[in-house]
């Protein structure tokens, strides 16, 4: 199997945690720059493991993962952070730092990138207002609802204009309205060139948007493309 050239390329990737069973088998896929993909499948299908490979939290046990044309297995420790800064990550658990305010959480990627204080304040305030949290800038995560936390997490993921946005079940903890709003927010980012991958177990959500979906089943990629008409087709990317 060969993958097409793109921002993300996986070739025959296998993943195993320690000496446990393999959780991903021979996964090959390619994401074009500026594309929007869903990644779906039942709980335990391997979606989170696949995403963790994409945002460099794991190394594949076998096969090749290429991000931005670089083989991640060959990256040295110092080469990983610059690559991670090109990736925005939204996790189901929000991943917010509890003692930092919403604004400070969102500012983190810019602080790490050594942006100036004025630039940070302006961008953070604008972005949080854009996601509807203009009044919650100085609130700690504990004072926010799950939907608000998720919007803070999304704002933090996109503040530094990443090339790739990876969202793991971003709608899992929010009501339908907020879920739709978050996906629309990601679509807006996609329109300005960000490649987006959204993992969700909610196939109805996938059906409402016209984006192609990869479907994982038992650690294998079994379908690719729009859900309708792709059932049962094995991915030969």
């Amino acid at each position, binding site marked *: 199997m060969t993958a097409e050239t793109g921002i993300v390329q996986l070739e025959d990737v296998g993943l195993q945690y320690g000496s446990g069973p393999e959780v991903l088998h021979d996964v090959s896929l390619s994401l074009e720059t500026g594309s929007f993909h869903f990644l779906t499948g039942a709980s335990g299908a391997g979606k989170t493991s696949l995403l963790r490979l994409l945002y460099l939290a794991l190394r594949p046990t076998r096969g090749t993962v290429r991000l931005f044309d670089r083989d991640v297995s060959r990256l040295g420790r110092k080469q990983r*952070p610059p690559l*991670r800064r090109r990736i925005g990550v939204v996790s189901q658990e929000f991943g917010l730092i509890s*003692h930092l305010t919403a604004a400070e959480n969102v500012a983190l990627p810019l602080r790490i990138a050594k942006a100036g204080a004025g630039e940070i304040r302006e961008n953070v305030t604008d972005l949080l207002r854009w996601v509807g949290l203009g009044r919650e*800038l100085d609130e700690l995560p504990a004072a926010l609802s799950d939907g608000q936390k998720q919007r803070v997490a999304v704002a933090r993921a996109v503040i530094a204009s990443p090339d790739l946005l990876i969202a793991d079940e971003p709608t899992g903890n929010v009501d339908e309205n907020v879920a739709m709003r978050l996906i629309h927010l990601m679509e807006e980012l996609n329109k300005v060139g960000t490649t987006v991958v959204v993992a969700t177990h909610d196939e109805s959500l996938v059906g409402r948007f016209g984006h192609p979906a990869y479907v994982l089943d038992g650690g294998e990629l079994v379908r690719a493309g729009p859900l309708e008409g792709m059932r049962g087709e094995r991915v030969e990317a």
Partner: protein
Amino acid sequence: MNGGQVRAAGVLPLGRSAGGRYGPWIVAAALFVATLATAATMAIRNAEQGWRTALAGKITVQVPAPTGLSDEPAAEIVALLRATPAIAEAEAIDAAVARALLEPWLGAGAEIETLPLPTLIDVRLRPDARVDIVALEVALDATVPGTRIDDHGIRLAHVLRFALALQIFGAAVAAIFGLIAIVTAIFATRAGLSAHREEIGILQLIGAWDGYIARQFAAHARNLSIKGGIPGCALAAGALILLDRYAPDGNAFMVPGMTLSPIQWVVLACLPPVVTAIAMAAARMTAVRALSRVM
């Protein structure tokens, strides 16, 4: 509400941990002892130099006097000593002075005049002169039987050896307690790494490099060392000033005073910044090493 103000403070709340709260007390206690031990080491060194100056190149000759009060045998010995080329000066100690020296030990009411005291002769040798003490003692004994030489050099050598041992001991105590302050910073770093694993994971996920995270721990170690080190060192300085007030004048009874030179005070003042710098480097290394084991 502060209008989305983004504080430049550390991202990890390291100061709120137990290590952050109690660490400065441990560092303060360690720096207090380290400062005192360093000061004691320097005071002993000062005393040692005083002893060297006071006793080097000097001997004392004891001339027995059957009557205890006769100066005639002593005069013969003084003459002989003055005729010896290696000797610069020989002076018999006045009997009244010798009795005054004994009075504190025997009491004011003692009949010291009746005691058969030897006559003491202070002898100063010429600089760089080599004197055969045994041959000189034989010659003196031949002139006045029973005359003995008390060579301060031998006693001084014993005292200096002991002083050196005390200095080594003092330096070791200072080093151990300085090390305790540094180890406190290392333990605080390890505790922080463990307590804030989740936050560190988030920082790594958004592209923080190891140095960025390690810098937070180095800054925490700096705060810990400054908060504890400066008060600990200042308290020790106060104790030293107080001790110096109660120390005997000069080198009375061979007891060293606690008076330090300005340079030595500067050395003591340098202890907190030196410990802080080492603690920061140790915290940074500990953090980098721990972070290198995770993705």
